[in-house]
């Protein structure tokens, strides 16, 4: 065993230099040249200020915006410094109470059941940037009223923001909430 220690430690250290330093720095170099915006987190700026990332969901509570899915990150929803899901099991009383509360909240805004499941379930990351098209369309009435906009116009906006399956079969149709809400703000001005 002792005679193996020299090659063992030596190999770990050399491989650390190759796979732990050279490899990630080389990839960072490639990224800086080939896709700098993506490598820096797909950030979105408006009027010179960073408002978020195209890939990371953010919390919306105002009636004037489309709402994202519930988020289980703590202490605040949609906090990227602590990503994760609720991890509550299917028979959890906490889960049932939480969903029942969210369903009531939606019903108060005039929404009829059945409700699209994604609107009241927390995602695995707590940062899901998307909602289903059904969920977005369900919210059109509330948003249009809060902004004094024509329902048909908001409907069209949602439909134009639906990202379809790639090649017709890969992935699921979804709507990016941040980009939809930014388009809403742009509509006004």
């Amino acid at each position, binding site marked *: 065993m002792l005679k193996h220690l020299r090659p063992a430690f030596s190999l770990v250290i*050399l491989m650390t230099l190759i796979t732990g330093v050279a490899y990630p720095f080389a990839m960072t170099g490639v990224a800086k040249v080939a896709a700098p915006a993506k490598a820096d987190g797909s950030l979105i700026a408006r009027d010179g200020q960073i408002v978020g990332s195209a890939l990371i969901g953010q919390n919306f509570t105002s009636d004037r915006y489309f709402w994202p899915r519930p988020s289980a990150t703590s202490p605040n929803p949609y906090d990227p410094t602590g*990503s994760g899901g609720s991890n509550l099991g299917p028979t959890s009383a906490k889960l049932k109470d939480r969903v029942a509360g969210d369903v009531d909240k939606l019903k108060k805004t005039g929404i009829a059941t059945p409700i699209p499941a994604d609107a*009241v379930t927390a995602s695995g990351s707590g940062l899901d940037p998307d909602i289903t098209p059904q969920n977005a369309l369900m919210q059109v009435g509330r948003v249009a009223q809060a902004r004094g906009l024509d329902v048909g116009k908001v409907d069209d906006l949602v439909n134009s923001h639906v990202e379809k399956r790639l090649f017709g079969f890969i992935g699921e149709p979804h709507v990016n909430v941040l980009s939809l809400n930014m388009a809403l703000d742009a509509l006004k001005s």
Partner: protein
Amino acid sequence: MTLIGWVQIGFLLALVLAAIKPLGLYMAQVFSGKKTFLTPVLKPLEIGIYRLSGIDRDREQGWLGYTLAMLAFSVAGFVVLYAIMRLQAYLPVNPQGFANVPSDLAFNTASSFVTNTNWQNYSGEAVMSNFTQMAGLAVQNFLSAATGMALAIAVTRAFVRSKAETVGNFWVDTTRATLYVLLPLSIIVAIAFIFLGLPQTMDGSVTATTLEGAKQVITLGPVASQEAIKQLGTNGGGFYNANAAHPFENPNAIANYLNIFAMLSISAAMVYMFGQMTGNRKQGWVLISAIAVLLVAGIGITYWAETAGNPILTSLGLDPSMGNMEGKEVRFGQAMSTLYTAVTTGLSDGGVNSMIGSYTGLGGLVPMFLIHLGEVLPGGVGSGLYGLVVFAVLSVFVAGLMVGRTPEFLGKKIESREMKFAMLAVLILPLVILGFSAVSAMLPAAVAAIGTPGPHGLSEILYAYTSAAGNNGSAMAGLSGNTVWYNTTLGISMLIGRFGYVVPVMAIAGSLAAKQKIPSSKGTFPTDTPLFAGLLIGIILILGGLQFFPSLALGPIVEHFAMMAGQTF
């Protein structure tokens, strides 16, 4: 379940199937020491490493020397990783200024990454510096995977050689696995990931002001490079706490495809390589088809259970057509989430793109059951192959008993010494999993860590030790595992699960290598037939499954019936 969901699943499996042969042939060349198209570039680097480390590349080792070298290498990896975590506050590339990692968590994490488990009792974005992530954790992503590959090569050689005293040189096999297989593939996959939107920067974080005026700290880092080796090495340890559910690790459907493809292809190709190197390609395909049958069944059951959804939530007014969406991402939906889950546990990857802790009773049973089967579908890189060989050895033995012939596998007689070691290896998993689970279920401090009480709580504990001993790393994460009890016992489970399994397997390899390779005769039970594939499936299910069935009945199966009856806890 939808047709389009099955098309997504089928298309991905077809892509992997297409990659098996070229990748398998390439690896057979690499590990036979033959020239490949990368040799001109990598040979000088390889020779330089041997020279600096004092490795004589022409000197081969017997099974014991090979195993001791592997243990020494793992000890060295553990020590270096533990030191990096304990000292990260004093080391460079720590933009967020994270403190040193506490000792019990560092022990757990070092055990976890050295054994290729990658169980994470920490939240990466809140505890580990960028330096620790890339020079500590990601290095072990390479090295623990390369170690597994080396062991699988040694086991393969036991069937190739006749009356041999040696099984290869551990240092050479590990170095080649890293330089010729893992590193080039990681570079390709990392670059693809960068174009798909994964961050790759040395910066720590950016603060955004959201549309509603709140501050949002967006954590960045060298994610793409880490995600590539995380999958290729079937490690599964995410840069972020949410693992591949996090949009920065897995931003879209194509990235999700690449994630699954990367984790599945090397392990599957190694089975082909086994057939190629032992001179019986048909044997490779027979093993692959047995794996495929079990894996597709696992995918199908999880997909069905999750699409069926949770009647408790449906009764509150949810549209059941989307299935159980708690813990899942909209961009993946049920098909791509459940495919990922079944593959990550059929392998020993353990990364997740949806939270298994929120799966339905039966949907959560499948991933746990797939780990119980020994992670041979097709298992971790290397560890899957040698696990499969153990099951094949057991299968020919059972077949031999039934027809009264001396069991043989690929020209090697299987005798009592091999059988004893094979049984020893197979029994270690239930001993560790059921032993620690039973103690934890009775220990008040351990029970207090449960997230969802009732049958799900037992599932959480059982899943934790299953994942640790099986070196998987996925979790029903409702369990708050970052306590001294869980950090320590899970760490021990991972070490026993890896090394307690590997040592008997290497003893089998040594004893088989020393035997004469005998040509097959009329009396030989052929192992490259569908009949053998069927027998192998039976042995895997009976040995892997029955040992754990009583505990599964008390956890996920009770939970399923409680859920159907609308009972909550």
